[in-house]
Protein backbone atom coordinates (compact mmCIF):
# COMPACT_ATOMS: atom_id res chain seq x y z
CA UNK A 1 0.00 0.00 0.00
CA UNK A 2 2.70 2.41 0.98
CA UNK A 3 5.44 0.90 -1.15
CA UNK A 4 7.06 4.27 -1.62
CA UNK A 5 7.28 5.41 -5.19
CA UNK A 6 10.52 7.35 -5.39
CA UNK A 7 9.42 9.84 -8.03
CA UNK A 8 6.16 10.86 -6.44
CA UNK A 9 7.62 10.74 -2.94
CA UNK A 10 10.37 13.12 -3.98
CA UNK A 11 7.92 15.45 -5.63
CA UNK A 12 5.66 15.47 -2.61
CA UNK A 13 8.69 15.95 -0.40
CA UNK A 14 9.89 18.99 -2.26
CA UNK A 15 6.46 20.51 -2.80
CA UNK A 16 5.49 19.23 0.67
CA UNK A 17 2.81 21.04 2.54
CA UNK A 18 4.78 23.05 5.01
CA UNK A 19 2.64 21.96 7.93
CA UNK A 20 3.21 18.29 7.33
CA UNK A 21 6.54 18.13 9.12
CA UNK A 22 5.30 20.26 11.99
CA UNK A 23 3.61 17.16 13.37
CA UNK A 24 7.06 16.00 14.43
CA UNK A 25 8.36 17.95 17.41
CA UNK A 26 11.56 19.93 16.94
CA UNK A 27 14.21 17.30 17.47
CA UNK A 28 16.90 19.39 19.13
CA UNK A 29 20.40 18.11 18.90
CA UNK A 30 19.83 14.95 16.83
CA UNK A 31 18.92 17.28 14.01
CA UNK A 32 21.81 19.63 14.68
CA UNK A 33 24.20 16.69 14.70
CA UNK A 34 22.80 15.53 11.39
CA UNK A 35 23.47 18.94 9.90
CA UNK A 36 26.99 19.09 11.28
CA UNK A 37 27.92 15.57 10.21
CA UNK A 38 26.54 16.12 6.80
CA UNK A 39 28.61 19.32 6.52
CA UNK A 40 31.79 17.56 7.65
CA UNK A 41 31.20 14.67 5.27
CA UNK A 42 30.61 17.02 2.35
CA UNK A 43 33.80 18.90 3.21
CA UNK A 44 35.77 15.65 3.10
CA UNK A 45 33.97 14.58 -0.04
CA UNK A 46 35.09 17.73 -1.84
CA UNK A 47 38.70 16.76 -1.21
CA UNK A 48 38.19 13.16 -2.19
CA UNK A 49 36.54 14.40 -5.35
CA UNK A 50 39.39 16.82 -6.07
CA UNK A 51 41.86 14.01 -5.57
CA UNK A 52 40.01 11.71 -7.95
CA UNK A 53 39.67 14.39 -10.57
CA UNK A 54 43.29 15.50 -10.35
CA UNK A 55 44.69 11.99 -10.52
CA UNK A 56 42.24 11.03 -13.22
CA UNK A 57 43.41 13.99 -15.23
CA UNK A 58 47.02 12.97 -14.64
CA UNK A 59 46.51 9.36 -15.64
CA UNK A 60 44.60 10.40 -18.74
CA UNK A 61 47.25 12.85 -19.79
CA UNK A 62 50.08 10.39 -19.28
CA UNK A 63 48.46 7.53 -21.03
CA UNK A 64 46.77 9.41 -23.87
CA UNK A 65 49.54 11.84 -24.77
CA UNK A 66 52.15 9.16 -24.85
CA UNK A 67 50.41 6.04 -25.95
CA UNK A 68 50.36 6.67 -29.65
CA UNK A 69 53.95 7.82 -30.09
CA UNK A 70 57.30 6.15 -29.83
CA UNK A 71 60.84 7.18 -30.62
CA UNK A 72 63.66 5.35 -32.37
CA UNK A 73 67.07 6.50 -31.21
CA UNK A 74 70.00 5.81 -33.50
CA UNK A 75 73.50 5.98 -32.11
CA UNK A 76 76.09 5.32 -34.78
CA UNK A 77 79.41 6.69 -35.95
CA UNK A 78 78.82 9.86 -38.02
CA UNK A 79 79.68 8.15 -41.30
CA UNK A 80 77.08 5.40 -40.78
CA UNK A 81 74.36 7.67 -39.39
CA UNK A 82 72.77 8.48 -42.71
CA UNK A 83 72.68 4.89 -43.91
CA UNK A 84 71.23 3.54 -40.64
CA UNK A 85 68.62 6.30 -40.51
CA UNK A 86 67.48 5.37 -43.98
CA UNK A 87 67.32 1.67 -43.02
CA UNK A 88 65.26 2.53 -39.95
CA UNK A 89 62.83 4.58 -42.02
CA UNK A 90 62.50 1.69 -44.49
CA UNK A 91 61.76 -0.76 -41.71
CA UNK A 92 59.21 1.58 -40.17
CA UNK A 93 57.51 2.10 -43.53
CA UNK A 94 56.78 -1.64 -43.74
CA UNK A 95 55.82 -2.08 -40.10
CA UNK A 96 52.13 -2.60 -39.40
CA UNK A 97 50.79 -0.13 -36.86
CA UNK A 98 53.03 2.75 -37.88
CA UNK A 99 51.12 5.63 -39.36
CA UNK A 100 54.05 8.02 -39.89
CA UNK A 101 57.77 8.25 -39.19
CA UNK A 102 59.78 11.43 -39.28
CA UNK A 103 63.41 12.29 -38.64
CA UNK A 104 63.62 15.01 -36.03
CA UNK A 105 65.51 18.17 -36.95
CA UNK A 106 68.62 19.12 -34.93
CA UNK A 107 66.72 22.19 -33.73
CA UNK A 108 63.97 20.07 -32.21
CA UNK A 109 66.48 17.89 -30.49
CA UNK A 110 68.17 20.95 -29.13
CA UNK A 111 64.86 22.17 -27.73
CA UNK A 112 64.26 18.83 -26.05
CA UNK A 113 67.64 18.95 -24.38
CA UNK A 114 67.51 22.59 -23.38
CA UNK A 115 65.79 22.09 -20.03
CA UNK A 116 68.56 19.78 -18.93
CA UNK A 117 71.67 21.19 -20.59
CA UNK A 118 70.91 24.89 -20.93
CA UNK A 119 70.17 27.13 -23.93
CA UNK A 120 73.74 27.64 -25.09
CA UNK A 121 74.27 24.06 -26.04
CA UNK A 122 76.64 23.65 -28.99
CA UNK A 123 74.55 20.93 -30.55
CA UNK A 124 76.74 20.63 -33.60
CA UNK A 125 79.76 19.83 -31.49
CA UNK A 126 78.12 16.97 -29.64
CA UNK A 127 77.75 13.46 -30.98
CA UNK A 128 73.99 13.49 -30.53
CA UNK A 129 71.95 10.49 -31.50
CA UNK A 130 69.51 10.79 -34.34
CA UNK A 131 65.86 10.65 -33.26
CA UNK A 132 63.01 9.33 -35.37
CA UNK A 133 59.52 10.14 -34.18
CA UNK A 134 57.03 7.35 -34.81
CA UNK A 135 53.30 7.97 -34.83
CA UNK A 136 51.26 4.84 -34.27
CA UNK A 137 47.86 3.88 -35.57
CA UNK A 138 45.22 3.19 -32.92
CA UNK A 139 46.05 -0.51 -33.13
CA UNK A 140 49.62 0.25 -32.06
CA UNK A 141 52.92 -1.39 -32.90
CA UNK A 142 54.26 -4.74 -31.77
CA UNK A 143 57.16 -3.24 -29.77
CA UNK A 144 59.45 -6.25 -29.21
CA UNK A 145 58.96 -7.43 -32.82
CA UNK A 146 59.88 -4.01 -34.18
CA UNK A 147 62.93 -3.86 -31.91
CA UNK A 148 64.21 -7.17 -33.33
CA UNK A 149 63.74 -6.07 -36.91
CA UNK A 150 65.44 -2.75 -36.24
CA UNK A 151 68.41 -4.43 -34.65
CA UNK A 152 68.87 -6.70 -37.61
CA UNK A 153 68.85 -3.80 -40.08
CA UNK A 154 70.46 -1.00 -38.07
CA UNK A 155 72.54 -2.16 -35.08
CA UNK A 156 72.58 1.33 -33.53
CA UNK A 157 68.78 1.73 -33.43
CA UNK A 158 66.89 1.43 -30.18
CA UNK A 159 63.12 1.60 -29.95
CA UNK A 160 61.83 3.61 -27.04
CA UNK A 161 58.09 3.08 -26.85
CA UNK A 162 57.82 5.07 -23.56
CA UNK A 163 56.08 2.11 -22.01
CA UNK A 164 58.90 1.31 -19.62
CA UNK A 165 58.66 4.47 -17.55
CA UNK A 166 55.12 5.45 -18.34
CA UNK A 167 53.33 2.35 -17.16
CA UNK A 168 54.07 2.57 -13.42
CA UNK A 169 53.08 6.25 -13.35
CA UNK A 170 49.81 5.64 -15.15
CA UNK A 171 48.94 2.73 -12.93
CA UNK A 172 49.78 4.54 -9.72
CA UNK A 173 47.75 7.55 -10.84
CA UNK A 174 44.78 5.30 -11.56
CA UNK A 175 45.22 3.65 -8.23
CA UNK A 176 45.11 6.98 -6.42
CA UNK A 177 41.99 7.78 -8.41
CA UNK A 178 40.39 4.54 -7.28
CA UNK A 179 41.31 5.45 -3.70
CA UNK A 180 39.61 8.81 -4.15
CA UNK A 181 36.46 7.20 -5.51
CA UNK A 182 36.53 4.63 -2.73
CA UNK A 183 36.74 7.46 -0.19
CA UNK A 184 33.73 9.07 -1.80
CA UNK A 185 31.78 5.83 -1.54
CA UNK A 186 32.82 5.39 2.11
CA UNK A 187 31.81 8.94 2.93
CA UNK A 188 28.43 8.32 1.30
CA UNK A 189 27.99 5.07 3.20
CA UNK A 190 28.95 6.64 6.53
CA UNK A 191 26.51 9.50 5.92
CA UNK A 192 23.73 7.04 5.14
CA UNK A 193 24.49 5.00 8.27
CA UNK A 194 24.54 8.06 10.47
CA UNK A 195 21.30 9.47 9.14
CA UNK A 196 19.66 6.08 9.53
CA UNK A 197 20.67 6.04 13.21
CA UNK A 198 19.50 9.61 13.72
CA UNK A 199 16.13 8.82 12.15
CA UNK A 200 15.66 5.69 14.19
CA UNK A 201 16.52 7.60 17.36
CA UNK A 202 14.08 10.36 16.45
CA UNK A 203 11.30 7.88 15.72
CA UNK A 204 11.94 5.94 18.90
CA UNK A 205 11.85 9.15 20.94
CA UNK A 206 8.53 10.10 19.39
CA UNK A 207 6.43 7.04 20.15
CA UNK A 208 3.67 9.22 21.60
CA UNK A 209 3.58 11.38 18.48
CA UNK A 210 3.32 8.29 16.30
CA UNK A 211 0.49 6.85 18.43
CA UNK A 212 -1.42 10.13 18.32
CA UNK A 213 -1.02 10.45 14.57
CA UNK A 214 -2.23 6.90 14.09
CA UNK A 215 -5.22 7.55 16.33
CA UNK A 216 -6.42 10.24 13.94
CA UNK A 217 -5.84 8.06 10.88
CA UNK A 218 -2.34 8.92 9.66
CA UNK A 219 -0.81 6.37 7.36
CA UNK A 220 2.80 5.21 7.68
CA UNK A 221 3.72 7.21 4.61
CA UNK A 222 2.48 10.43 6.17
CA UNK A 223 4.39 9.88 9.40
CA UNK A 224 7.52 8.76 7.57
CA UNK A 225 7.39 11.79 5.28
CA UNK A 226 7.42 14.20 8.18
CA UNK A 227 10.65 12.66 9.45
CA UNK A 228 12.14 12.14 6.01
CA UNK A 229 11.51 15.74 5.04
CA UNK A 230 13.15 17.07 8.14
CA UNK A 231 16.29 14.94 7.88
CA UNK A 232 16.62 15.37 4.15
CA UNK A 233 16.49 19.13 4.47
CA UNK A 234 19.01 19.00 7.31
CA UNK A 235 21.40 16.82 5.33
CA UNK A 236 21.04 19.03 2.28
CA UNK A 237 21.71 22.23 4.22
CA UNK A 238 24.69 20.70 6.01
CA UNK A 239 26.15 19.34 2.80
CA UNK A 240 25.64 22.70 1.11
CA UNK A 241 27.65 24.45 3.81
CA UNK A 242 30.33 21.72 3.88
CA UNK A 243 30.68 21.79 0.11
CA UNK A 244 30.98 25.57 0.05
CA UNK A 245 33.70 25.45 2.69
CA UNK A 246 35.51 22.62 0.90
CA UNK A 247 35.40 24.44 -2.42
CA UNK A 248 36.65 27.63 -0.80
CA UNK A 249 39.50 25.71 0.81
CA UNK A 250 40.45 24.21 -2.55
CA UNK A 251 40.22 27.56 -4.31
CA UNK A 252 42.54 29.01 -1.69
CA UNK A 253 45.20 26.32 -2.17
CA UNK A 254 48.43 27.81 -3.55
CA UNK A 255 48.08 27.74 -7.31
CA UNK A 256 50.25 25.29 -9.18
CA UNK A 257 52.67 26.82 -11.68
CA UNK A 258 51.11 26.33 -15.11
CA UNK A 259 53.82 24.17 -16.62
CA UNK A 260 55.08 22.87 -13.34
CA UNK A 261 54.32 19.95 -11.06
CA UNK A 262 51.62 17.61 -12.12
CA UNK A 263 51.28 16.60 -8.53
CA UNK A 264 50.52 20.00 -7.07
CA UNK A 265 47.53 20.26 -9.37
CA UNK A 266 45.01 19.28 -6.68
CA UNK A 267 42.00 21.34 -7.60
CA UNK A 268 39.29 21.94 -10.10
CA UNK A 269 39.51 23.74 -13.38
CA UNK A 270 36.73 25.13 -15.50
CA UNK A 271 33.75 22.83 -15.73
CA UNK A 272 35.17 20.56 -13.03
CA UNK A 273 33.89 23.06 -10.46
CA UNK A 274 30.46 21.70 -11.27
CA UNK A 275 31.22 18.29 -9.78
CA UNK A 276 31.34 19.29 -6.10
CA UNK A 277 28.03 21.12 -6.60
CA UNK A 278 26.46 17.69 -7.01
CA UNK A 279 27.48 16.73 -3.48
CA UNK A 280 24.60 18.46 -1.62
CA UNK A 281 22.12 16.90 -4.03
CA UNK A 282 23.75 13.52 -3.54
CA UNK A 283 23.71 14.01 0.24
CA UNK A 284 20.02 14.88 0.13
CA UNK A 285 19.33 11.79 -1.96
CA UNK A 286 21.31 9.58 0.42
CA UNK A 287 19.50 11.13 3.38
CA UNK A 288 16.14 10.74 1.68
CA UNK A 289 16.63 7.06 0.91
CA UNK A 290 18.14 6.12 4.26
CA UNK A 291 15.52 8.05 6.26
CA UNK A 292 12.74 6.52 4.22
CA UNK A 293 14.07 3.02 4.78
CA UNK A 294 14.69 3.64 8.49
CA UNK A 295 11.27 5.24 8.99
CA UNK A 296 9.30 2.46 7.34
CA UNK A 297 11.34 -0.13 9.12
CA UNK A 298 10.78 1.48 12.52
CA UNK A 299 7.09 2.15 11.89
CA UNK A 300 6.63 -1.54 11.19
CA UNK A 301 7.82 -2.34 14.70
CA UNK A 302 6.01 0.45 16.59
CA UNK A 303 2.39 -0.52 17.17
Amino acid at each position, binding site marked *: *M*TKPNLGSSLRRLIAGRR*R*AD*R*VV*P*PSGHTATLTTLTSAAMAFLAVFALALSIATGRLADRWSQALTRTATVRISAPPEQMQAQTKKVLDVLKTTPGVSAARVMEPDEIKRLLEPWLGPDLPVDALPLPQLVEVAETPEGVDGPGLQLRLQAEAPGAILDDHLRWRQPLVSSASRVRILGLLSLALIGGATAALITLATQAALAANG*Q*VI*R*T*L*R*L*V*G*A*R*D*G*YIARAFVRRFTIRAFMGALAGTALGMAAIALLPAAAPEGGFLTGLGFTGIEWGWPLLLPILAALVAFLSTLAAAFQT*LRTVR
Partner: protein
Amino acid sequence: MIEFHDLSLGYSGRVLMSGVTLKLMPGSFHFLTGPSGSGKTSLLKLCYGELKATSGRVEVFGQDIGAMARDQVALIRRRIGIVHQDCQFLDHLPMAENITLPLEVAGQVADARAMDELLAWVGLSGQARALPPQLSGGERQRAALARAVMGAPDIILADEPTGNVDWEMSQRLLRLMTELNRMGKTVVVATHDLNLIRVAKSQVAARVLRIQGGRVQLAGADL
Protein backbone atom coordinates in the same frame (compact mmCIF):
# COMPACT_ATOMS: atom_id res chain seq x y z
CA MET B 1 -21.76 -0.80 11.42
CA ILE B 2 -19.78 -2.49 14.17
CA GLU B 3 -20.11 -6.23 14.68
CA PHE B 4 -18.45 -8.55 17.17
CA HIS B 5 -18.52 -12.21 16.24
CA ASP B 6 -17.93 -14.63 19.11
CA LEU B 7 -15.11 -12.47 20.25
CA SER B 8 -12.79 -13.10 23.14
CA LEU B 9 -9.95 -11.00 24.47
CA GLY B 10 -7.28 -11.73 27.04
CA TYR B 11 -4.15 -10.06 28.29
CA SER B 12 -1.18 -12.34 28.90
CA GLY B 13 -3.27 -15.41 29.63
CA ARG B 14 -5.98 -13.68 31.68
CA VAL B 15 -9.30 -13.71 29.87
CA LEU B 16 -10.99 -10.32 29.96
CA MET B 17 -14.07 -11.12 27.92
CA SER B 18 -15.29 -14.06 25.91
CA GLY B 19 -18.13 -15.13 23.64
CA VAL B 20 -19.08 -11.55 22.84
CA THR B 21 -21.44 -11.22 19.90
CA LEU B 22 -22.79 -7.76 19.19
CA LYS B 23 -24.27 -5.80 16.36
CA LEU B 24 -24.38 -2.01 16.49
CA MET B 25 -26.61 -0.70 13.72
CA PRO B 26 -25.82 2.40 11.70
CA GLY B 27 -27.23 5.50 13.34
CA SER B 28 -27.53 3.85 16.76
CA PHE B 29 -26.47 5.42 20.06
CA HIS B 30 -24.96 3.13 22.70
CA PHE B 31 -23.57 3.68 26.12
CA LEU B 32 -21.00 1.29 27.49
CA THR B 33 -20.93 0.88 31.25
CA GLY B 34 -19.39 -1.45 33.74
CA PRO B 35 -17.07 -1.43 36.73
CA SER B 36 -13.62 0.03 36.41
CA GLY B 37 -11.34 -2.52 34.82
CA SER B 38 -14.19 -4.45 33.23
CA GLY B 39 -12.93 -3.79 29.73
CA LYS B 40 -14.77 -0.73 28.35
CA THR B 41 -11.64 0.88 26.99
CA SER B 42 -10.46 -2.47 25.63
CA LEU B 43 -13.74 -2.99 23.81
CA LEU B 44 -13.51 0.43 22.16
CA LYS B 45 -9.89 -0.24 21.16
CA LEU B 46 -11.03 -3.43 19.46
CA CYS B 47 -13.44 -1.33 17.39
CA TYR B 48 -10.74 0.90 15.96
CA GLY B 49 -8.06 -1.75 15.59
CA GLU B 50 -5.68 -0.72 18.34
CA LEU B 51 -6.24 -4.11 19.97
CA LYS B 52 -6.57 -7.45 18.26
CA ALA B 53 -9.02 -10.05 19.50
CA THR B 54 -7.63 -13.26 20.94
CA SER B 55 -10.27 -15.11 18.94
CA GLY B 56 -13.37 -14.24 16.97
CA ARG B 57 -13.51 -11.09 14.89
CA VAL B 58 -14.59 -7.48 14.78
CA GLU B 59 -16.14 -6.06 11.65
CA VAL B 60 -16.28 -2.32 11.08
CA PHE B 61 -18.05 -0.99 7.99
CA GLY B 62 -18.42 -4.65 7.06
CA GLN B 63 -14.67 -5.32 7.06
CA ASP B 64 -12.66 -7.51 9.44
CA ILE B 65 -10.49 -4.91 11.12
CA GLY B 66 -8.26 -7.46 12.82
CA ALA B 67 -7.11 -8.79 9.46
CA MET B 68 -6.25 -5.40 8.00
CA ALA B 69 -2.86 -3.98 7.22
CA ARG B 70 -1.90 -0.89 9.20
CA ASP B 71 -2.58 1.51 6.38
CA GLN B 72 -6.06 0.09 5.84
CA VAL B 73 -6.74 0.54 9.54
CA ALA B 74 -5.61 4.16 9.15
CA LEU B 75 -8.16 4.70 6.39
CA ILE B 76 -10.90 3.14 8.54
CA ARG B 77 -9.94 5.44 11.42
CA ARG B 78 -10.53 8.48 9.26
CA ARG B 79 -14.18 7.47 9.30
CA ILE B 80 -14.15 7.03 13.09
CA GLY B 81 -13.88 9.89 15.57
CA ILE B 82 -12.03 8.64 18.63
CA VAL B 83 -11.91 10.19 22.08
CA HIS B 84 -9.09 8.32 23.79
CA GLN B 85 -9.38 7.94 27.54
CA ASP B 86 -6.17 9.89 27.99
CA CYS B 87 -6.80 12.25 25.11
CA GLN B 88 -3.42 12.11 23.34
CA PHE B 89 -2.38 15.33 21.66
CA LEU B 90 0.75 16.51 19.93
CA ASP B 91 2.13 18.58 22.80
CA HIS B 92 4.20 20.89 20.63
CA LEU B 93 1.30 22.09 18.48
CA PRO B 94 -1.39 24.59 19.53
CA MET B 95 -4.90 23.25 20.20
CA ALA B 96 -6.26 24.61 16.93
CA GLU B 97 -3.80 22.49 14.95
CA ASN B 98 -4.38 19.48 17.19
CA ILE B 99 -8.09 19.67 16.62
CA THR B 100 -7.73 19.81 12.83
CA LEU B 101 -5.20 16.98 12.80
CA PRO B 102 -7.67 14.37 11.45
CA LEU B 103 -8.22 16.59 8.40
CA GLU B 104 -4.54 17.41 8.10
CA VAL B 105 -3.44 13.76 7.94
CA ALA B 106 -6.17 13.05 5.40
CA GLY B 107 -4.85 15.87 3.23
CA GLN B 108 -7.93 18.05 3.71
CA VAL B 109 -8.24 21.66 4.75
CA ALA B 110 -10.30 22.59 7.78
CA ASP B 111 -13.16 25.03 7.38
CA ALA B 112 -12.18 27.90 9.68
CA ARG B 113 -15.77 28.82 10.56
CA ALA B 114 -16.79 25.29 11.40
CA MET B 115 -13.77 25.07 13.63
CA ASP B 116 -14.56 28.34 15.43
CA GLU B 117 -18.12 27.21 16.06
CA LEU B 118 -16.93 23.88 17.35
CA LEU B 119 -14.43 25.49 19.69
CA ALA B 120 -17.12 27.85 20.96
CA TRP B 121 -19.47 24.93 21.59
CA VAL B 122 -16.96 23.08 23.74
CA GLY B 123 -15.97 26.36 25.44
CA LEU B 124 -12.41 26.53 24.14
CA SER B 125 -12.56 29.66 21.98
CA GLY B 126 -9.91 31.34 24.11
CA GLN B 127 -7.58 28.35 24.05
CA ALA B 128 -7.07 27.89 20.32
CA ARG B 129 -3.45 29.00 20.53
CA ALA B 130 -2.65 27.25 23.81
CA LEU B 131 -0.48 24.15 23.88
CA PRO B 132 -2.08 20.93 25.20
CA PRO B 133 0.05 20.77 28.39
CA GLN B 134 -1.31 24.21 29.33
CA LEU B 135 -4.91 22.90 29.42
CA SER B 136 -6.80 21.49 32.39
CA GLY B 137 -7.99 17.89 32.37
CA GLY B 138 -11.53 18.92 31.47
CA GLU B 139 -10.38 21.25 28.76
CA ARG B 140 -8.34 18.45 27.24
CA GLN B 141 -11.38 16.20 27.19
CA ARG B 142 -13.43 18.86 25.46
CA ALA B 143 -10.67 19.37 22.92
CA ALA B 144 -10.45 15.60 22.37
CA LEU B 145 -14.16 15.47 21.59
CA ALA B 146 -13.85 18.46 19.26
CA ARG B 147 -11.03 16.70 17.41
CA ALA B 148 -13.03 13.47 17.22
CA VAL B 149 -15.97 15.15 15.47
CA MET B 150 -13.85 17.51 13.35
CA GLY B 151 -13.51 15.15 10.40
CA ALA B 152 -17.28 14.49 10.27
CA PRO B 153 -16.79 10.75 10.93
CA ASP B 154 -19.47 8.10 10.48
CA ILE B 155 -18.77 6.56 13.87
CA ILE B 156 -17.89 8.29 17.14
CA LEU B 157 -16.21 6.25 19.87
CA ALA B 158 -15.83 8.27 23.06
CA ASP B 159 -14.08 6.85 26.12
CA GLU B 160 -15.31 8.72 29.22
CA PRO B 161 -15.54 12.04 27.39
CA THR B 162 -17.16 13.74 30.40
CA GLY B 163 -15.06 12.26 33.18
CA ASN B 164 -13.43 15.52 34.22
CA VAL B 165 -16.00 18.20 33.42
CA ASP B 166 -18.82 19.76 35.41
CA TRP B 167 -22.42 18.74 34.94
CA GLU B 168 -23.33 21.65 32.70
CA MET B 169 -20.39 21.04 30.39
CA SER B 170 -21.18 17.30 30.37
CA GLN B 171 -24.58 18.12 28.99
CA ARG B 172 -23.12 20.37 26.32
CA LEU B 173 -20.73 17.61 25.23
CA LEU B 174 -23.57 15.13 25.25
CA ARG B 175 -25.63 17.49 23.07
CA LEU B 176 -22.84 17.50 20.53
CA MET B 177 -23.01 13.73 20.32
CA THR B 178 -26.80 13.43 20.30
CA GLU B 179 -27.00 16.07 17.55
CA LEU B 180 -24.49 14.11 15.47
CA ASN B 181 -26.50 10.96 16.17
CA ARG B 182 -29.63 12.69 14.86
CA MET B 183 -27.65 13.44 11.73
CA GLY B 184 -27.18 9.71 11.31
CA LYS B 185 -23.82 9.09 12.97
CA THR B 186 -23.24 5.96 15.02
CA VAL B 187 -22.16 6.80 18.57
CA VAL B 188 -20.65 4.68 21.35
CA VAL B 189 -19.87 6.35 24.67
CA ALA B 190 -18.15 4.61 27.55
CA THR B 191 -19.16 6.22 30.83
CA HIS B 192 -19.84 5.70 34.53
CA ASP B 193 -22.23 8.62 34.65
CA LEU B 194 -25.78 7.30 35.00
CA ASN B 195 -27.25 10.80 35.02
CA LEU B 196 -25.71 11.45 31.65
CA ILE B 197 -27.32 8.29 30.32
CA ARG B 198 -30.71 9.42 31.62
CA VAL B 199 -30.41 12.80 29.93
CA ALA B 200 -29.32 11.17 26.69
CA LYS B 201 -32.32 8.86 26.72
CA SER B 202 -34.56 11.90 26.80
CA GLN B 203 -32.93 13.18 23.63
CA VAL B 204 -32.24 10.10 21.48
CA ALA B 205 -32.97 6.38 21.42
CA ALA B 206 -29.91 5.42 23.41
CA ARG B 207 -29.25 1.86 24.53
CA VAL B 208 -26.96 0.68 27.27
CA LEU B 209 -24.41 -2.11 27.01
CA ARG B 210 -23.10 -3.40 30.28
CA ILE B 211 -19.82 -5.25 30.64
CA GLN B 212 -19.54 -7.46 33.67
CA GLY B 213 -17.68 -10.65 34.39
CA GLY B 214 -16.38 -10.92 30.86
CA ARG B 215 -19.87 -10.69 29.31
CA VAL B 216 -21.46 -7.87 27.41
CA GLN B 217 -25.21 -7.52 27.88
CA LEU B 218 -27.86 -5.12 26.78
CA ALA B 219 -29.15 -3.50 29.96
CA GLY B 220 -32.87 -3.23 30.57
CA ALA B 221 -34.88 -0.04 30.79
CA ASP B 222 -33.92 0.23 34.47
CA LEU B 223 -30.20 0.46 33.53
